């Protein structure tokens, strides 16, 4: 390649001094899956230890192995929780949130093994098992999150096609304005239909509507269907008006479906966090109760 001239007498400035950009890799493939291998190693080692070490009368959380697993588990949980702080605290330093996420994901998965082995499979209706259940819920929602992170960004990008969320909303408002102006000459009946379509926003519908793949029964869709089904009398002077309204409604429908799709994907990328995070706090509470009860009422 062509050489790049260094500054006069300053060969260590510029390109030379800055390290090359890290090779482009996602959080799952970070450092060649370093944390994945680490987590796998830990899990296999622990399972082997669990099988090979003979604890009398049976494996439980109170044995030396159980205590070790419990301590490791609780420290790990606390560290995993810290991702929320790390993400928000933009302190200087040579850390990368990608590396943290990678470690969070893989070590979090290994917690399934650590936590479960700690129970010694002694599950029941008590606060101890509650902590385990909450932990499993957090991990399972996390798995959902990884899946969403793996599959959805591409679709989010395709769907928005260089438009920003703000632009999408502006398009919708613009169409509404045109629709409103165009509908002025209409009679009461069709006017009400258009008004219903105008009243429909991108944010209508309950959570199932919002997350579902198909959005059923919007007022715009109904208005469009109604106008399309309108009998076509020959040379009706209103033909032109209806054609225009139909075109506008179709545009609104398209704009609505794009923004709904956008919001749906964004929601799917986030919704699991609404379980993942609060349950983590519930887990921390249950864990405290578990630890205190174990030490005080043993």
């Amino acid at each position, binding site marked *: 390649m062509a050489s790049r001239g260094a500054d*006069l*007498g300053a060969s260590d400035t510029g390109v030379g001094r800055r390290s090359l950009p890290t090779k482009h890799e996602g959080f799952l493939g970070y450092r060649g899956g370093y944390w994945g291998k680490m987590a796998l190693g830990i899990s296999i080692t622990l399972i082997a230890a669990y099988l090979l070490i003979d604890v009398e009368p049976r494996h439980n959380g109170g044995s030396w192995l159980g205590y070790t697993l419990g301590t490791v588990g609780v420290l790990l949980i606390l560290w995993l929780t810290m991702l929320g702080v790390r993400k928000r605290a933009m302190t200087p330093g040579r850390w990368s949130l990608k590396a943290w996420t990678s470690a969070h994901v893989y070590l979090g998965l290994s917690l399934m093994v650590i936590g479960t082995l700690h129970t010694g499979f002694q599950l029941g209706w008590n606060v101890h098992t509650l902590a385990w259940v909450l932990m499993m819920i957090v991990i399972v929602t996390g798995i959902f999150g990884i899946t969403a992170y793996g599959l959805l960004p591409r679709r989010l990008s395709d769907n928005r096609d260089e438009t920003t969320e703000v632009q999408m909303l502006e398009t919708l408002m613009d169409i509404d304005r045109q629709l409103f102006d165009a509908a002025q000459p209409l009679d009461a009946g069709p006017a009400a239909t258009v008004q219903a379509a105008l009243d429909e926003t991108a944010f209508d519908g309950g959570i199932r509507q919002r997350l579902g793949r198909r959005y059923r029964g919007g007022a715009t869709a109904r208005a469009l269907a109604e106008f399309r089904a309108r009998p076509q009398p020959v040379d009706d002077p209103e033909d032109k008006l209806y054609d225009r309204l139909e075109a506008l409604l179709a545009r609104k429908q398209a704009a609505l479906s794009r923004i709904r799709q956008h919001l749906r994907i964004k929601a799917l990328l986030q919704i699991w966090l609404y379980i993942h995070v609060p349950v983590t706090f519930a887990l921390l509470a249950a864990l405290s109760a578990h630890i205190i009860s174990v030490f005080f009422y043993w």
Partner: protein
Amino acid sequence: MADAYRIAIIGSGPAGLSAAGRAAQLDIPHILLEKTDHLSDTIYKYQKGKHVMATPSQLVLRSDMDFDAGKREEVLGTWDEQAAAQGVNVRLNADVTAIEGEAGNFRILLADGETIQAENVVLAIGTQGNPNILRVPGGDLPHVQYQLDDPGEYVDEHITVIGSGDAGIENALGLAADAEQGNVVTILNRSAEFARAKDANVKLLTQAAEQGRITIMTETSPAELRAGEILLDTRDGQTKIRCDRVIARVGSAPPRKFVEACGVEFASEDREAFPKLSPAFESTKKGIFVIGALAGYPLIKHCMNQGYDVVEFINGNTDLKPADEPLLEAKFKGLPGSRTVDHWLDFLRERVSILRDLSPLQMREFMLDSEVHHYRRGATIFEKSEPGSSIFGIAEGHVLVELSDADRSLTQEIEQGSIFGEVGLVSGRRRGATIRAGEDVIAVEIPRMAILKLMATVPAAKRAITYISTERQLLQMFGSGLKSEDLVDVMRTAEIMQVKAGEAIIEEGDDGLDIFVIRSGSMVVEKSIGRKPVFLSYLPAGSYVGEMALLDEALRTATVRAAIKSEVIRIDGRAFRELLHSKPELLANARREMEERENINNFVEAKKDSFSTVVDMYSSVASFLVENGIGEATDVLLIDENLCIGCDNCEKACADSHDGLSRLNREAGRTYAHIHVPTSCRHCEHPHCMADCPPNAIHRGDDGEVYIDDTCIGCGNCPRNCPYDVIRMEKVPPPKPSLLSWLFFGTGPGPGEPDRDWIDDRVSEDTPKVAIKCDMCAGIEGGAACVRACPTGAAIRVAPEEFLSVSRLETEQI
């Protein structure tokens, strides 16, 4: 004709008029000859109502005529009155055709056949009678004019003003002043900034552009004029605009023929050179004195002072010091040796090569803007990484460039007469190396704007600076212990070429041998496969290309074209080959680099069959990136939308690292094949934002980041000049409550940029807005916050030459 006058003054502009006024005051028999039927034709021809400025403001006016900034009509009125009151002997309609005879007995021939006798002649004819003409196809069409008398005459026209000096700007402003006239005015500027023009004019112009009254096209020059339209070469290629009238204000040159016929010699063969003059304005022809624009300085105040001075000199007052003498005296005060101001000026001018072609008068003016320093042996002149964009010229002694931080004794010498610090001229980069005095040194420090003005007005200085910077660039690039003596032959063949965007400097299959060094801009290397151009690599400024054909003695293997408007140095291949053969080390270097290039070529050849998939994809992504300005970027943020979850943590991290204001907009920007180029600074090779910063607050830092320092005055020029919309004007909000207090108590707006209301409540109405932009998190440990804060690894920062290399294909198999 009548008796001989003691002084005949030809031309009644500010200079001639002031001279005549002085002569009248001293009761010297004199005559003032004016070609037209009114005094001061140049000012008379200014457009109606034009505001006449009185710059440079630090210069003291010394004349019997009053002058202050004001409307054209007021200025002319005052002069007419005072000329009459002082008894100036004027002869209007006196067109001088020749001057004959010797000092003490000149015969001035007039067009009407009369002859005037005079002992001394003062030439104050200016240069306006001899405007430079456009040398492009169509330059002689009837709709092209070199003069604008009354901008009110033109209505509903598309008018293009060519020229970036005061005249051009004032014409453009005049034409666009009244919206009722309905003119669509465009002003073209060949370079990126208006260096020749007065600050006040540039400000008015940018204001007018902001209000949409005028379109400014920088880095644009006319390619061809046609009836009704004009073809333009712009930074990004050729374009066409409608144009009913062209007003060309591209300067004027001295009416050389007439002046030389009088027996006056010029300083050089340059079309724009000025007559050789003594400090008393006497030309090489004894008894003929030259003042005003013809002497090399066109500013009114200067001209008037010269008029006063020249008459005093002729009258025998040889001790008279110019009006700016005290200012200059103060500048030279701290220097060793007790020289007079004139001696100092000559000393500097003779010794510093780039100043050699200045007239004594220009030198005076020039020194008003510059400083002279004296450094003791071993003193540091500037430190590496210090901000600074001035150039130094060495008048005495030599300086040493420190080549290494670790070993300060490793130095390179820059000898007397040469310049240093020129790297900062183009880019505003921080100082690249520490420079210290090798012995006692006297050096002139020239500020950036003054050197730009010097280069724009004195072609020889521009050539000298270009030569030195070209030579240094070659020396740095080739390294290998080359010395400037080794480059003499190569430099003789070196030629600087402007390349338009998209133009090829090397075509695949040609048999050229020349080497090209990219001075500014960038190039892309393409190879044609299956009649489709495949993008091979990207070459930033500072690279060289073309050595393969030379070493291999083969045809060109790839096409090299400009990604954006660029400047290259073309070196004759044969001269370079000789250099290679005399320097085995250099040859070995070149061979090594060539092998790398060959590997890429071979790789592409090998992939030819699977072209439609791998290479095609790569090539189209690369083209997309170059289209989006990556061609001139040095470091750019890209987002892989296969990974981006839209959490905006990058924006939040950016805001939290920089006063709570984000410098990037993740969602906006173009996307191709899921590679997204967000709205964020690309740290261009030649930043557009730097082009016109009044306080010179935009610099390039150590790691190549372009940043704005605290001296920003909030004028808004940089966001207007940025083609990528990455600079915002914002009021800086106070610090937010800490993260923990937000986390536990919900105080403050939380991570990221606070919403507008939160900020508005906390900044006062009159807090000035300042320009904010990405600084690549310079000085923050760990580097760019946007990349560090990306949870999925979607955000990456890349330098294009690293990213846009086909070699990535081998490792990544996209």
